């Protein structure tokens, strides 16, 4: 893949008057944003036909920085707002940029139901295992034993595997990468953007300030090295025992299928309604 310079991508898609961003030094959100914009650019998608939706949190500030229509909503509710946008105007392509706390905790119910409906939306999910904006509380994704301000002795809860959850709930496309896997990440976003129905690309993204500092991973590079250590490609994971997979996070493409999307289903439903009422043949 030929990669355009970052300046070119930045100049074309970012709102200069909104910069600098609120992101801390070493944060991974900027990288994932760049992958998303590169995917849009590579596909040559029409900027005016894409709406970015988000909830509340660091990553949810992204729609403000990009020069597209954007809806920055309430905490956890991005996908519910997205449902209205997409159903009211199916011509719009919807990207939801979400964090792990936003999507899987307060927004967990909207997440599984949006997936169940196969809502036509591409979710870019920043998973940094923590609540970064509010200062490092544990998230539903925090690995057991790791620390946050609300579990200062190490989390005692089982974490969610968001990618597996999305597969089980019925998503059309699910992939997970760490920020380090940039080419795979861009390719996955491209695939996701081209598919109908619910698509989700999860990124393990570093938060050195709120998460890393409390877990002996003080810098971005330290966290990225840790991701390299704890991630296992899905092809390799298939041949590993549960003991070997203990403490590891599987990365790769989890599912790629073409179940009918919500928009297609609703169009068919409208036709069925008119037929049953005798309005149409």
């Amino acid at each position, binding site marked *: 893949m030929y990669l355009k310079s970052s300046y070119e991508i930045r100049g074309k898609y970012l709102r200069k008057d909104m910069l600098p961003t609120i992101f801390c030094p070493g944060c991974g959100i900027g990288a994932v944003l760049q992958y998303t914009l590169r995917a849009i650019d590579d596909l040559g998608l029409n900027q005016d036909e894409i709406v970015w939706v988000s909830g509340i949190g660091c990553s949810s500030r992204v729609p403000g920085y990009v020069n597209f*229509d954007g809806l*920055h*909503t*309430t905490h956890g509710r991005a996908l*519910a707002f997205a*449902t209205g946008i997409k159903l*009211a105007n199916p011509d719009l392509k919807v990207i939801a940029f979400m964090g792990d706390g936003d999507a899987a905790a307060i927004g967990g119910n909207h997440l599984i139901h949006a997936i169940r409906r196969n809502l036509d939306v591409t979710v870019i999910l920043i998973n940094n295992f923590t609540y970064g904006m509010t200062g490092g509380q544990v998230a539903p994704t925090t690995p057991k034993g790791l620390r946050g301000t609300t579990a200062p002795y190490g989390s005692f809860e089982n974490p969610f595997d968001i990618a597996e959850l999305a597969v089980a709930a019925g998503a059309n496309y699910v992939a997970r990468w760490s920020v380090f896997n940039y080419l795979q990440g861009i390719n996955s976003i491209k695939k996701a953007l081209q598919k109908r129905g619910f698509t989700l690309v999860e990124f393990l993204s570093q938060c050195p300030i709120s998460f890393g500092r409390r877990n002996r991973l003080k810098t971005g590079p330290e966290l990225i090295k840790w991701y390299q250590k704890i991630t296992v490609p899905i092809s390799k994971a298939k041949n590993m025992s549960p003991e070997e997979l203990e403490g590891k996070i599987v990365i790769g493409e989890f599912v790629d299928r073409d179940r009918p999307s919500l928009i297609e289903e609703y169009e068919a439903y*409208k036709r069925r309604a*008119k037929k049953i009422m005798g309005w149409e043949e």
Partner: protein
Amino acid sequence: MRYPFPVGAADFIQGDEAIARAAILAGCRFYAGYPITPASEIFEAMSLYMPLVDGVSIQMEDEIGSIAAVIGASWAGAKAMTATSGPGFSLMMENLGYAIMTETPLVLVNVQRSGPSTGQPTLAAQGDLMQAIWGTHGDHSLIVLTPATVQEAFDMTIRAFNLAEKYRTPVILLTDAEVGHMRERVYAPHPDELELIYRKLPANEEEAKYPFGDVHGDLVPPMPIFGKGYRTYVTGLTHDEKGRPKTVEAEVHEKLIKRIVAKIENNKEDIVDYEAYELDDADIVLVSFGIVARSAMRAVKELRKEGVKAGLLKLNVVWPFDFELIEKIAENAERMYVAEMNLGQLYHLVREGANGKADVELISKIGGEVHTPGEIVERIKKDLR
């Protein structure tokens, strides 16, 4: 356009059904809801009609999601509505505030039942008045309409959409289980007879740059809906005229919130609606809204028969509240009575309006049954004795 119900004709239908039909005639093409008694019939009627008129009706996972989807649909260009009752209304409060802050036109119907909590699901109440006005956090204003009959539920639904579009604001149709479930004769006008208002869109690129700016001097910014190439950023954070977050600038916050409040309060004359019955020479003035106003009207007739100079002020809009009107009426009245199905929510507003010019008494009733006219008459006669 073909409609799946009679238009330009009368029908004998429930209040909830009337609200659904009126919404469709007003141009509503997106409905999101979650089942709840006594509002479910609105949702069921919408589910029946919407696919036939190329609209959308969707059952969301909860009420939070319902109003969220309605806001999303509104920004995508649709006239949109949701309906609920007390517990669901409570869940919607956060996103109601978001709709106020982002100036999103929508209609939210609350078919009231008794609370707090799950309360009496099948019985009427008027206990959500203060929540409708002040339920969401922060300083704000919005519009609250209160129908008393099935025909009014129909007519006010259309008005609710018109006001929402005109002032770019959420409008609450605050009704109750009695009006919602009662069947009455309703005339549904032919669409050609209706005057419908649609939101002001930006006239050009320049106007679209200020989606939250007072570009026309009427306090209501044109709304650049999504997909038109304007690239609008909408946030619930305090934002400037361009929509850019400005969360620590006091003057930006003050200017934004004061404009959002002023666009409602400064247009009180246009929005406020009431019926004055026998008020001209009234010594005893009843003030009421919704279903109770019908009992109060009958009570006034009974009292007049017995020589008591009674009158009724029936409020069709409870917010913005016409405090000045109440004071004017209080100046000529000996005593005012507020009859309502709660422990005194409208009473507080009327007392403030009366401003000490007349005594204000509360005729309160809770438990799910509407005041009988006789109860109101008895109470007033007791005081006169």
